[in-house]
C-alpha cells in the first residue's frame, strides 16, 4: 500500500509541469481513479483545504492523502514521492545553470527570459489582487462586488513595504489580523 502510494506520487511529481494547479488533475487521476482510495467529494474537500493552507498545493494534497490513508508514515512517503523527481531534475538543471551561466550566449538567452518571468509574477499578482478585491476573476470585477476593506489593506500593505521597508511576512500576517478584526466589528 505505502509503496503504491509512493509510486503514485512519484508520477504526480514527475508529470506536473508548471505549478500547483497543473498537479490537481494528476492527483485526482491517481487517487480517485487509479488507487480508488478516495471519493470525488473527499477529493474536492482536499483541494479546498490545500488551497486554504500555506505551502505548495501538491505537497499539501500529498500530505493530506497520506495522513488519511496511513497516518504520519503515509504523509512522509507521499511527500517524498512528490518531491523526489523535482529534486533530482532541478539539481541537474541547477548544476548546468551554474556551470554555463557565464557564457555570453547563455546570458543572451536568459536576458530574453527574465522580462517574461517578471510578467508571469505580475500576472499571478493580478489574479490574487482580483481575488482579494472582488472575490473572483475578471468576470466578477464589478463595482457591486468591490470590497473596500481589502482595498484599504492592499494600499496600506504597499505603503508599509515601499515607504517603511516593512517585512513581507508581517505585512501578510498583519493584513490577516487587521482585516479579520474589521470584518468582525462591522
Amino acid at each position, binding site marked *: 500500500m505505502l509503496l503504491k502510494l509512493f509510486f503514485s506520487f512519484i508520477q504526480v511529481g*514527475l508529470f*506536473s*509541469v*508548471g*505549478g*500547483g494547479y497543473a498537479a490537481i488533475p494528476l492527483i485526482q487521476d491517481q487517487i480517485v481513479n487509479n488507487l480508488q482510495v478516495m471519493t470525488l467529494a473527499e477529493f474536492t474537500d482536499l483541494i*479546498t*483545504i*490545500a488551497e*486554504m493552507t*500555506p*505551502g*505548495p498545493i501538491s*505537497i*499539501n494534497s500529498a500530505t493530506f492523502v497520506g*495522513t*488519511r490513508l496511513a497516518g504520519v508514515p503515509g*504523509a*512522509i512517503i507521499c*511527500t517524498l514521492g512528490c*518531491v523526489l523527481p523535482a529534486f533530482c*531534475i*532541478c539539481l541537474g*538543471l*541547477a548544476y548546468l*545553470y551554474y556551470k554555463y*551561466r557565464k557564457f555570453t*550566449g547563455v546570458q*543572451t*538567452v*536568459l536576458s*530574453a*527570459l*527574465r*522580462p*517574461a*518571468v*517578471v*510578467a*508571469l*509574477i505580475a*500576472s*499571478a*499578482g*493580478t489574479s*490574487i*489582487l482580483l*481575488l*482579494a478585491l472582488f472575490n473572483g476573476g475578471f468576470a466578477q470585477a464589478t463595482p457591486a462586488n468591490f470590497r473596500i*476593506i*481589502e482595498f484599504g*489593506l*492592499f494600499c496600506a500593505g504597499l505603503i508599509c513595504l515601499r515607504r517603511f521597508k516593512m517585512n513581507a511576512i508581517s*505585512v501578510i*500576517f498583519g*493584513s490577516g489580523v*487587521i*482585516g*479579520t478584526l474589521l470584518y*468582525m466589528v462591522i
Partner: protein
Amino acid sequence: MHNKDKGILWKLFKATFMLSAFTFGGGFVIVSLMKKKFVEELQWFDEEEMLDITAIAQSSPGPIPINASVIIGYRMHGVLGALVAVFGTALPPMVIISVISVFYRQFRENEIIATALQVMRAGVAAVIFDVVLRLAKNVIATRRVLYISVMAIAFVLTVFMNVSAMVIVLSCLAIGVAEMLIGLRAQKVEGEV
C-alpha cells in the same frame, strides 16, 4: 563541518521554513517572497539570478517552491544545501496539513478562518506588487525595446488570454535563442569584413 557552513545551512533552513509557512497561494507568491528574502535582505545573490532561478523552477516538473528551494540550496551549499532547503520548504505544509486533516470539516466551515484567509490575500497581493514594481522598473531601465515588449506582451497574454506560463517561457526561450544566433551572425559578418 565548519561553523560558517553550519551558519549558512541554518539560515537556509530558517528562511525556507518561514517562507513556506507563511505563503498562501501559488508558486509565484513564494518566488516574490524569496526575492525579498534572499536578494534584498540576505543579499546572497542578485535579482537577475533570482529571475533565472524562477524560470528554471517554472519549467521543470514538480511544485515551483520546491524547485526554487533546490536550486537556491544547491547554489549556497551544494547537494547538502539543496536537501536542507527542500526539507525547510516541505516541513511546514506537512505539519499543518497533518494536524488539519484530523478535523478538516470544522476547519473548512469556520468563518473566522475563512475571513482571515480572504483578507490575507490583500497583503499577499501587496507583497507581489511591491516586488513586481521593482523588477519592472529594472526591465524598463535596460531601454531595450525587445525586453520591454516581451514583458508587456507576456503580461497581457497570461492575464487576458489565459496562456499558460509554460508556453510563455518556451516562446521566450525561442526568442532568446534567435537573438543569440543573430548576434553570432553579426559578429561573424564583422569578422569577415
